[in-house]
């Protein structure tokens, strides 16, 4: 019988190719489950999971909650905005208080890179990282790869360009690790100011021209312009960003092939991609959302099976 090589999902960097394969095989089964008339299985009925979100999230939190409920786990959710964190409680104290209510697993989003890793070293529970600052967002990368595998049959040998704000993006970093591990080729494209220095050392090529990048790619993963993280002006104006790095229907139609368009959401319509691209048949954005539930069910199920 196969099992994961890790007890926590902190980042793609810490897992192996065989883990990704196992997660995808398991997600295939859960995808069938969530398309049944009754979309629920009782596997995790004796597991309690805390969703601890120190940063805003709609889709990731909903997706995790739905995944946990479809596995019959008991779920408690917590947002920092309404909590004692505002009163000055430390991270370990907050989580240990939650754990003393007999919680088996913690799904955490935090603004500081390394928060999930720190937690896994200091508290007794299985940790899933739902995004830690600009570090990693492993379940997003897994569901992106899963969607590529579903759309194109395989991830190995595919060419993926990640477009936009690479500097502030945990999605980009996790995706680079996950795609390379599975044998895909990755390029990044965006304004120089939003590309990290030395990104080439990850084995990623930089392409500054969007048209050239799309001509090369099988898949374009369009990242969101994260206005909330842009503390200084990284580009002159949103209009100029859109002109250089926004994907339009005209641009896609002028290519002599179909590029699969992905977006981790939430979309700034008319900025990274136009509405007609977001709603076109080339876009797999809503498939990503559906697959997100199946992939998170698989990750939760496989990690829960290791809780003794």
């Amino acid at each position: 019988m196969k099992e994961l090589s890790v007890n926590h999902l902190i980042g793609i960097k810490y897992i192996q190719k065989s883990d990704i394969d196992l997660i995808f095989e398991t997600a295939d089964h859960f995808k069938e489950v969530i398309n049944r008339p009754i979309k629920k299985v009782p596997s995790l009925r004796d597991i309690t999971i805390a969703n601890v979100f120190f940063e805003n999230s709609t889709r990731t939190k909903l997706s995790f909650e739905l995944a946990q409920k479809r596995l019959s786990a008991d779920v408690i959710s917590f947002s920092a905005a309404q909590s004692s964190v505002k009163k000055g409680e430390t991270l370990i104290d907050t989580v240990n208080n939650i754990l003393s209510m007999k919680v088996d697993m913690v799904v955490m989003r935090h603004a500081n890179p390394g928060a999930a890793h720190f937690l896994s070293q200091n508290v007794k529970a299985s940790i899933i990282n739902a995004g830690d600052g600009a570090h990693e967002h492993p379940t997003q990368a897994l569901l992106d790869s899963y969607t590529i595998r579903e759309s194109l049959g395989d991830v190995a040998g595919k060419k993926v360009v990640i477009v936009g704000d690479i500097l502030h993006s945990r999605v980009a970093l996790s995706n680079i690790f996950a795609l390379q591990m599975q044998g895909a080729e990755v390029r990044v494209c965006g304004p120089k100011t939003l590309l990290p220095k030395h990104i080439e050392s990850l084995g990623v090529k930089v392409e500054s021209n969007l048209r050239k990048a799309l001509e090369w790619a099988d898949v374009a993963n369009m990242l969101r312009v994260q206005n909330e993280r842009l503390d200084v002006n990284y580009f002159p104006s949103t209009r100029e960003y859109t002109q250089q790095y926004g994907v339009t229907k005209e641009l896609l139609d002028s290519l002599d092939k179909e590029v699969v368009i992905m977006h981790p959401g939430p979309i700034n319509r008319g900025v990274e991609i136009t509405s007609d691209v977001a709603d076109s048949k080339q876009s797999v954005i809503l498939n990503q959302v559906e697959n997100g539930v199946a992939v998170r069910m698989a990750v939760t199920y496989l990690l829960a099976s290791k809780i003794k």
Partner: protein
Amino acid sequence: MSQKVLLTAKEVNIILHRLACQLIENHLDFSNTILIGLQPRGKFLAERIKQVLENEYQIKEIQLGFLDITFFRDDFRRGEKPLEANKTQIDFLVEDKKVVFIDDVLFTGRSINAALTAIQSFGRPSEVELLVLIDRRFSRHLPIQPDYRGRQVDAINNEKVIVKWKENEGEDLVLIETKN
């Protein structure tokens, strides 16, 4: 470790025909009946029963599905390793249908218990029956008995019943293996 042959290919074939006839007695043309092979090992028996019904007894359009019960088992996290799932393939609703579960060996009854829960995800069957090739007597943990049985055996705990199928292992054969 020693092995003893319980059923030869010829005996398996005779039993398959008998089980098929017993099913016809209760289900006639199978218009309101659904056969469900329990994954992983019940799949082969279910496919074989369907073949016999179609080829030897000219019953057409039998609905056959496969049900995986991994996520419904009651021993999650109690075993050594996680339980690996198989494909569930039920492309129809079982609402108000007569469902026949098909599995190769009935032992503790826990798989059948899990299957009874799992099938509810596809609707409320009007009734559920159980068909097994081998019924291991005196080993049940739950009050579950088969409606159709190929052969009843008294196997004790350090014995294991192994069912082999032509499609998978090259020959039809049922063995009892004793660990020393």
